[in-house]
């Protein structure tokens, strides 16, 4: 088989993650979906690095992980404080952008 399939897989996972973000209301699950998307990207990067035969792709993936970690930390903190205040983790409850 040829390694392009990895890219197909990555695309698939990314799409699933994105859809999840759109569908789920529980903030935590939404976050998980975001993680999923990030991982899909990572997979793609790794596959690319294999294609081009250099490690830059892996470096980028590595950075992605770091950033993802940071993002998760902050995001979960936000969720917690949100839950503290309004006793729910639903993203729809925080619909204050309405006119």
């Amino acid at each position, binding site marked *: 088989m040829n390694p392009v399939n990895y890219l197909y897989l990555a695309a698939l996972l990314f799409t699933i993650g994105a859809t999840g973000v*759109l569908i789920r209301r529980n903030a935590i699950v939404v976050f998980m979906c975001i993680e999923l998307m990030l991982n899909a990207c990572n997979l793609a990067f790794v596959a690319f690095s294999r294609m081009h035969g250099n490690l830059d792709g892996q470096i980028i993936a590595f950075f992605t992980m770091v950033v993802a970690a940071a993002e998760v930390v902050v995001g979960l903190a936000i969720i917690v404080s949100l839950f503290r205040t309004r006793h729910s983790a639903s993203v729809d409850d925080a*619909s204050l952008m309405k006119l």
Partner: protein
Amino acid sequence: MENLIAPLIAAPLLGAAVLLLGGRRLDRVGHWVGTLLSATSFVFGLILFADLLGKDAEHRTLTQHLWTWISVGSFQADVTFRLDQLSMTFVLLITGVGSLIHLYSVGYMEHDERRRRFFGYLNLFLAAMLLLVLADNYLLLYVGWEGVGLASYLLIGFWQHKPSAATAAKKAFLVNRVGDMGLSIAIMLMFTTFGSFAFGPVLSHTGDTSEGKLTAIGLMLLLAACGKSAQVPLQSWLGDAMEGPTPVSALIHAATMVTAGVYLIVRSGAVFNAAPDAQLAVTVVGAVTLLFGAIVGCAKDDIKKALAGSTMSQIGYMVLAAGLGPIGYVFAIMHLVTHGFFKAGLFLGAGSVMHGMNDEVDMRRYGGLRKYMPVTFITFGLGYLAIIGFPGLSGFFSKDKIIEAAFAKGGTEGWILGGAALLGAAITAFYMTRVMLMTFFGEERWRNQPTRSPQAPSAEPAAEHRGEHAEPHPHESPKVMTIPMIVLAVGSVFGGAFFSIGDRFLHWLEPVTGHSEGDSPLSAAAVTGATMVCLVIGVAIAWAQYGRKPVPVVAPRGSLLTRAARRDLLQDDFNHVVLVRGGEHLTRSLVYVDHTLVDGVVNGTAAGFGGLSGRLRRLQNGFARSYAVSMFGGAALLVAATLLMRAV
């Protein structure tokens, strides 16, 4: 000498300005100022007249150029006055009779607190009329023309607190405006045809253009004349104009306003001579009005309205004569002048009667007044004899000539017109006799009658001051009122004879209007005889009806024609139904259309945008996820775009 023309107009204009701007300070002397200034302009007129008589017939035209009024491209309107025999005649008539009426009004309006303003308006009236007859081009004439309209508006509506008066004034102005429309269109036609609208160029080049154009101009001028001279179909304002004080009626009917139309037609004689169709129209209008006015005059119980009807019919005579062309012009003017005398006399007499009867105008509540106001009776009587054309008096000469001329038109037209004129003479005799009998003869129907009868609501404030509502005490009017009446009576007795002995008037006017003897199928004597017969018949019928048997105080229902005539032959009703009602509906519906349709489209567009933005606003539902969807969709579109770009 021609420099005297401007002052002739300026004098009454000055009077109007002074009296209207002067304020209360002038209240005590105002009326004398007005009278004096109109008299002044009469004096100027006399001086100029003497001057003209000094010249030989061909050079009796003075012109005075003051300044260029409007000058745009080839459109040149000058303020230039032209004094020739025709305008001279009018000047004397206007200023002379006008001054007498001023004098009369001093007494008549004595008790009116707004007398000063009244005289201001009178002076304005004179000034406008003088401008009308002295103008050297049609546009300047138009100024005087509308000025007369304005003055009549102010005077007819002088007692503005009476809604009827205000309405009558408005009506008069509007109907005149319709006529003015004709005049302005005529001026435009002249400008496009001759490149000018001054008398000289236009009247001397009528030969160079097509008859169609001239007919159009003629008809438009006729329309204008109908408006001012109260000819059918624009006569409806004249009757209502009686809402004004009686001197105003005298002024309008005798000296100034209604004569303007005749002046216009005679002045534009050259145009009409070259346009037979227009002439025919003029004669028809004249004949119809002649009968119309006469019939209306027969049915009115209001003395002023009856006289108004007679004016209509007399002006009809003049228009008829003017329509006959060179054979009639001179006689039209002659009748106009004599009519000026006796009609003014009649109106002043009527005013004097009302003055003595607490402003009662219903002739059915008069009767037997000859004992109580002898002067009025005599002067009125002389005027009466004059108007019915009693042999020897002025009406006899002038009217007779017109009837002759009508026959002289020749052909069936001649017969028809002449017949109409004869019939008119008969009816005139009838209704004037009726007025005479009902007013001065018979038993005294005003005894133990409450005045201010319902169909005569013309409450003149003068009377209100005296506050007499009980039985009237008929009395002769003061000298200041009777003297003018006497003077006019003299004029109406001898005027005609003076003019026609040796055709003085003919020779005087001929250089301007031209004259030609038509070939009459009847001899002058025959016509005169016929006229006499008609006269006798008319008087006889009137005597049979109103002289022998007593006159009922409450008007009998009368025949269909009578009732129609009382309502001005339903012409007002027609106007009311068709024009007034129709107009109201039109405007009301247009207001609706403007609000709903025109404005509705605009507001609709606005509302549409508002609604649209409201819809779009819904998208901003504040749910992060739906924003995310749009982001995601956008991303998808971007991918698609890039792919497409690669594909192509």
